[in-house]
Structure formats: C-alpha cells, structure tokens
C-alpha cells in the first residue's frame, strides 16, 4: 500500500505556528504523528462514534454478512444448474471467491474511507483535512471507519476454509505460501485501487459512481474464472487493470492448472510485482492530486 503522505508542508507550518506561542513545546510534541499511528487513533475514534447506535451497528454488520453472501449464493445457484463454468468446478470457483473476498474485505476494512472523499471535496471540508498536522492519507482512509465492515470477512473466511477442504489439491509448502500471498497481494492491489478511485474525485467530483467500477467492479469480476470474459478482456484484466494478479494468476498455480490464455508460467508468481507497481502508481497519483487540489470554496 502507498506510504501515507504528509500534507506537503502544511504540517511543518502548523508546528512552527504553535512553537511561536507563549508556551514553547518540546521537539517531540511538535513533530506530526506518524501516519500509521494517526490512522489507528482515527480508527479508534470513528469506531467509538459508530458504536453510539449499538442496534443499528449490529444490524448493519449482519447486513454486511448477508450482502457478502449474495454473490456466494449466486455462484451456488449457477452451479446448481451446471457442473462447470468457464472450465472451473464449484470448489475451484469457491477458492477464487474466498481469496478475492478476503483480500477485498481486508482492503475495504482499511481503505474504504476513501468513499467519503468526494463529499468532503464537494463540501469544502477537505481543506480542514489538509491543514491538520496529520497525514492526509491516514485521515482520508480512516474517515467514517465502522466496525460493521468486519462482517464482510466472515463469509469470505468461511468459504475459503470450505474450498480448501473440498479441493482435490496436494497442499505443499509452495501452495500454502502462495495462498497466503494471494490474499496479501490482493489486499495491497485493492488498497491501491481504493486510493486511485479516491483520486477520481479530485478530477471529477460527481464521478463517485465511476470510481466504484474500479473497486467493486474489479472485485466482482475476479470472483469468477477470468476465462468467462474471453481472451481480449481477460488480457486487459491482466495487463491494463491488473486485477488478474489479485487471485487468478496465483490460483492457477495453486489449482495446478495451465493458463487458458497461454501466458507464461512466471506470471503465477508475479502478484507481488503487480502489487508494488500499482501501489507506486497510486502513491504518485495521490501526491499529484493533493498538490493540484483547489478548494471548491462556497
């Protein structure tokens, strides 16, 4: 994931302003909070805010479990009609679904605060985010954090365990490590996509729903074997919007299958590269957006 950026000099300016006051502070107090720590503190604050309406929080958490199950039920309904889709059996698709959902659920937990960015830019409240002496990205990612998002992880973990049990796969060290890496790299790729989708709001404030196609759309697409999209679109999902590296490529190795599109074997292990490249891109674009940001004013 992209390293949290500081708000381009705003933090330092603020620190200087306070040090000019009547009570000189120690050096440690002047330094802005490190991004990850600030993020965790903000998450704790938002969680406590969300816990004020307990019943509503519990119900929305349950709703998240159900919503995540909907696509699972859809897969089960499809496989109730036919034994194989796009060359994949139910157990294999469940493995794809489980890893995708787990990776996406974790990224949603950490980064989906980006979704409120469009509103804060439109209302001008993003200015306040910029002048606080705390990492901008940490504030944006943590915005409106709610513990209900843990609900999304429950069906994902359950399905993955289910798939691992029923899959006729010889689990050796490489496969186990690759399975863990699938989720980890998927998580990083989705986080990068969240940040990039947030950047869309800087360019076009109204385009929030377009940003959803990057995040929810790519998540939805990777739940199914990419073969169903045909060769041109399948290759686009590998090399243009590299979501095939979220689960598809490493999963081909774990399931012991050759690539239906005939792509070379080293790509099965290329997910970390895709993750690093996409995070780098997200970090660059994010910095560029922050630098070029102009307040909407009122």
């Amino acid at each position, binding site marked *: 994931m992209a390293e949290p950026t500081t708000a381009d000099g705003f933090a330092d300016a603020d620190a200087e302003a306070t040090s000019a006051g009547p009570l000189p502070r120690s050096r440690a107090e002047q330094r802005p909070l490190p991004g990850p720590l600030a993020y965790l503190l903000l998450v704790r604050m938002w969680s406590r805010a969300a816990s004020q309406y307990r019943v*509503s929080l519990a119900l929305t958490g349950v709703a998240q479990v159900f919503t995540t199950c909907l696509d699972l039920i859809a897969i089960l309904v*499809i496989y109730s009609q036919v034994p194989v889709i796009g060359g994949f059996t139910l157990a294999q698709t469940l493995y794809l679904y489980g890893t995708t959902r787990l990776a996406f659920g974790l990224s949603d937990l950490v980064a989906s605060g980006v979704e409120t960015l469009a509103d804060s830019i439109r209302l001008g409240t993003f200015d306040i985010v910029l002048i606080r002496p705390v990492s901008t990205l940490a504030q944006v990612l943590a915005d409106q954090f709610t513990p209900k998002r843990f609900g999304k992880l429950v069906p994902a973990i359950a399905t993955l365990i289910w798939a691992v049990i029923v899959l006729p796969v010889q689990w050796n060290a490489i496969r186990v490590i690759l399975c863990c890496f699938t989720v980890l790299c998927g998580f990083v790729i989705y986080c990068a996509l969240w940040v990039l989708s947030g950047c869309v709001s800087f360019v076009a404030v109204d385009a929030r729903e377009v940003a959803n196609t990057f995040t929810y759309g790519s998540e*939805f697409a990777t739940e199914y074997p990419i073969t169903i999209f045909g060769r041109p679109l399948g290759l686009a999902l590998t090399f243009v919007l590299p979501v095939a590296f979220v689960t598809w490529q490493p999963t081909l190795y774990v399931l012991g299958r050759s690539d239906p599109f005939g792509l070379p074997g080293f790509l099965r292990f290329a997910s970390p590269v895709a993750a690093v490249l996409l995070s780098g891109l997200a970090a660059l674009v994010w910095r560029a957006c922050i630098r070029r940001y102009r307040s909407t004013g009122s």
Partner: protein
Amino acid sequence: MRVYLTAARLSLRRYLTYRSSAAAGVATNTVFGCIRAFVLIALWKQKPDINGWDEADAVTYAFATQALIAPMGIFLSGTELGPRIRSGDVAVDLYRPVDFQAWWLSLDIGRAVGAGVLRSAPPVLFGLLLFPVRLPLDPVNWIEFVVCCVLGYAVSFALRYLTSLLAFWTMDERGVASIMTTAGMFCSGLIIPLTIMPGLLGTVVQHTPWAAVVQLPINVLLGTQAGGFGYALGFAALWALVLLACGRMLTSAARRKVVVQGG
C-alpha cells in the same frame, strides 16, 4: 392534487440538475451489466435452455436489471424521509397541510422519473450494440412492461417508506434499511435471475414483493411470464395495495404516539 404534482415536478427538476452524476451512474451500471452478462453467457453456454430462457433472454435480463436499479431505487436505503426523522426536521413535514404518505410519494416519483429518463436507456442500448440483447418489437409488450414497472415502482416505494418510518421508533433506521436493501437486491433478481433459482428457494423468492420490482416487469417484456401479463399485474397490484395500506396505518400510528427528536 396540484400540490403533489408540483412537489413531484420540483423533485424531478432537482434530480435532473445532477446530470454528470447520472452519467457516472450510467457508466457504472453499464460495466456491471457487462460483467453480469458475461457470467450468464458462460452459464448458458453450458446449458442453452434454462426454465424456458435462452441466452438472448439472459443477456437482455442482465442489462434490463441495470436499467431498473436507479428508477426503482434498489440501492437506496429507504426514502429521504429517514434522515429527516433522525435529525428532527420531520417536525416541519408533519406541519404541512398535505397527506404525509402522498407527499413523500410525490417527491420520490420525481426522483424515479428523473432516474428513468437519465439512467435507464444507455445501459440497454450499450448491451444492444455489443451483446446479443433481444428487445421485443411488439408495442403491446412495451405497454405491459411500463404498466408492470409503474406497479413495481409502487411496491418499491411502499417498502422503502415503511423502512424509513421505522426511524420514528428506533431513532436510527439505517440498520434495518441495509438489511432491506440486501434482501431487495437478492429477492428482486438483481444478483441472479429468480427464474434459475432451484426448488423451494425459487418458489419463495418468486412470491416476495421484490419480485414485482425487477423480475416480473422484465418477464413481461421478454414474454416469458408464467400466467402472462394478467398474473404479473395482479401480483404487483396486490403487494402494492397491501404495503401502501401498511404504510398508511404506520403513519397514523406515528402521528399519534411519537415524540419528534431535535432541540
């Protein structure tokens, strides 16, 4: 009556103001329509006839559902009444010399018409260009489809209105609203056509009120509804009447008992 027409017209005008937002929504609906179409095509490739539907029916369904999302308000959590109850602004609404339910219906109709005008046609046209979408040429199908959509909309509004009203008692209806949205997404047939659901599950989902919101209008459009237009009409009208009547009863209960929030 004039006041409701004016309310609907102003609500429509407000919706039409946010055109770029609607364009973004259209793009998203189209992308999701494509992904769903690919999934259904993969299924129909294996099994060319599922409960009387061929591949063209399934693909048409994938794009038509996307066209109905916005006007039917499937992703909306309740109506705009919910947040007003939470903030206490509803006190002003209760003062208005109008029928409370009809007032919110008029505002929501404005929104639905705006969404239908701006957001419904493009995903289907896109599907028509690049996918084997098949639309009927007989105007009778289209008239029946529109009638079913109007009744389906009434059911959708009635359900969302009931959800919002709960905020009078629970203070925060968002939990219930998100459960209702989830149930609606599944039971309307947005995620997967109700026609291919097996056994008991299929029977149950085809009788929930949400079936009238998406699945039945499209069945009528495709000409595949068992029992024909008459059945779809009766089913939707019955649910609309029952749910709107529940809304009326709950409204008067709320007016008598509830203390409005605010300060």
